[in-house]
């Protein structure tokens, strides 16, 4: 399928800092799943924050449906792209349902408030991430993993075409990682959702993702199907660790460190 979201030659430099991302390009097809992998500090989060419209690239362009990202009216863009940061903490004890409901905001007309239908959507989203039981709790009282499930539900309530996730599985246990991946796979089937996800969880990437983007020192050093990217030599280079090994087992790729 033809890609609807394209990034070309993205570069970003933090004030008085080094070049965090250099000439990164990627394309996203409808109903596809892309993983961004790479060592800590390789520019993954900076890249995804540019894709989310939070950072403006120093050079390069991001096109959504062929139109530059910054040309999109912000609320219209918010109906297309959702973003979930690495971690979220609120200063005020907002009830979980209100946090999820805020994801409906781009769909609510100006000076209107969320309707009962929006509330139902928010509850559905909470159910799909397995966090419906948290609806009435205060957000500040939740654990890091629970907060991730709630923020993911909020991103789903936004009903985007493209979901950008910055290490969603970092603070999740095994069961919730499985829940997360199942929820994403289902939305991809049902609604044609596309996902770009930063992850260190290479076991997850092997079977579920169509495409892997590998970053090293701010540059995209390789991208392609998991079977092409998840090779021992390539991974060793990306992570600067000579003992990384990988092997295809059926549709899965196993990655481990040789002692």
């Amino acid at each position, binding site marked *: 399928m033809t890609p609807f979201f394209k990034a070309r030659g993205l570069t970003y430099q*933090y*004030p008085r800092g080094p070049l965090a991302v250099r000439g990164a390009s990627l394309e996203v097809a409808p109903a596809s799943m892309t993983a961004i992998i790479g060592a800590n500090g390789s520019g993954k989060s900076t890249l995804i924050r540019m894709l*989310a*419209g*939070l950072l403006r690239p120093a050079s390069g362009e991001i096109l959504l449906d062929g139109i530059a990202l910054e040309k999109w*009216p*912000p*609320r*219209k*863009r*918010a109906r297309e*792209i*959702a*973003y*979930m*940061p690495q971690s*979220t*903490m*609120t*200063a*005020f*004890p*907002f*009830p979980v*349902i*209100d*946090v999820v409901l*805020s*994801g409906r*905001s*781009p769909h609510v007309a*100006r*000076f209107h*408030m*969320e*309707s*009962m239908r929006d*509330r139902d959507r928010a509850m559905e989203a909470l159910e799909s991430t397995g966090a419906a039981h948290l609806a009435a709790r205060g957000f*500040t*009282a939740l654990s890091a993993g629970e907060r991730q499930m709630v*923020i993911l539900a*909020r991103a789903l309530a*936004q009903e985007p075409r493209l979901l950008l996730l910055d290490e969603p599985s970092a603070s999740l246990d095994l069961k919730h990682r499985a829940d997360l991946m199942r929820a994403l796979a289902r939305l991809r089937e049902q609604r044609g959702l596309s996902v770009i996800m930063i992850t260190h969880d290479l076991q997850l990437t092997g079977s579920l993702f169509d495409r892997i983007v590998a970053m090293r020192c701010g540059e995209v050093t390789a991208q392609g199907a998991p079977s092409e990217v998840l090779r021992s030599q390539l991974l060793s280079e990306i992570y600067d660790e000579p003992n990384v090994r990988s092997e295809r087992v059926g549709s899965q790729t196993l990655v481990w460190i040789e002692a």
Partner: protein
Amino acid sequence: MKTLPARLAGAIAILSLMLLASLVLGLVVGRQRIDPGSLLSDPFARTLFFRLRLPRVLMGLLIGASLSLVGAALQALFRNPLADPFTLGVQGGGTLGASIAIALGWSARVLGIPLVFVAAFAGAMLAVFLVKAIASTGMVVLPGALLLAGVVVNLVSSAAVVAIQYVVDPNAALRILRWIVGSLDVVGLEPVGRMFVLLVPAWIALLALGRQLHLMAIDEDTATTLGVNVSRCETVVHVVCSFIVGITVAMGGSIGFVGLIVPHAVRLMFGEDLRIVLPGSLLLGAAFLAVADALARSVLPSTELPVGAITGLLGGPVFLWLLRRRQQYSTM
């Protein structure tokens, strides 16, 4: 669970009743009790009521509403429960601006607005940007640094005000002192009307940002990805809050902690949604300052207390309680 419009309507109904009750209380209580019947027969009572009592109570409503609304907006903008016009140094900056104007004897008006107002607005504005600039490192505003910067701006402002008071003639010094303490004394309805005309558009501007401020109060980054123009929203809130605080400081002096206590009371009663907290703070703030002023006028048999003393005595403990509660679940 009830939908937001239903909750908002309920909150406004309850708070409007409270406002009405506090209005009646404010009009009745005082050194000189005014019997409603005597308003028709007694010209002295009528003068007292329309020239002094009513303007003062209305002034209390306007200033209480303004400071509370600004407090609620600043708390959301900075995602900091301890933010208010006083703790962020906005009132200090405004007071310094007003003091300079008084000391230099600026009595002129620009477009019908006294220069003291303009100076207070400029001082408040400067304080907001200074505090924000000091507390920001890169892109994050550190909550602890924000309050410390506010404290420092307040201290420097009050030191400068003290210095000014020593230099200027005693008359101006006394006028400055009245400003600092904060008083709602006003003669006639005309100044109240002028304030009303200036403040209402500013209130509307803040209330209209309810959705944006709600999303920003939850999280700044995701507010952007939910379609909020965060930097534009910040600028509008800074300017409008400085404008409101400048006017209230120029008219009523520095009345502390109202903007801190009232939004929290509204949250406890009606929940965290800013689209309820903002209008709720407006109504409850008006009621709160009217009652505080009624207390200030009646608590001592011999004399009146400044209303700023009452709000300070009530607000200090609330601030400490919030600080303690906050430390239990997050880092400052």
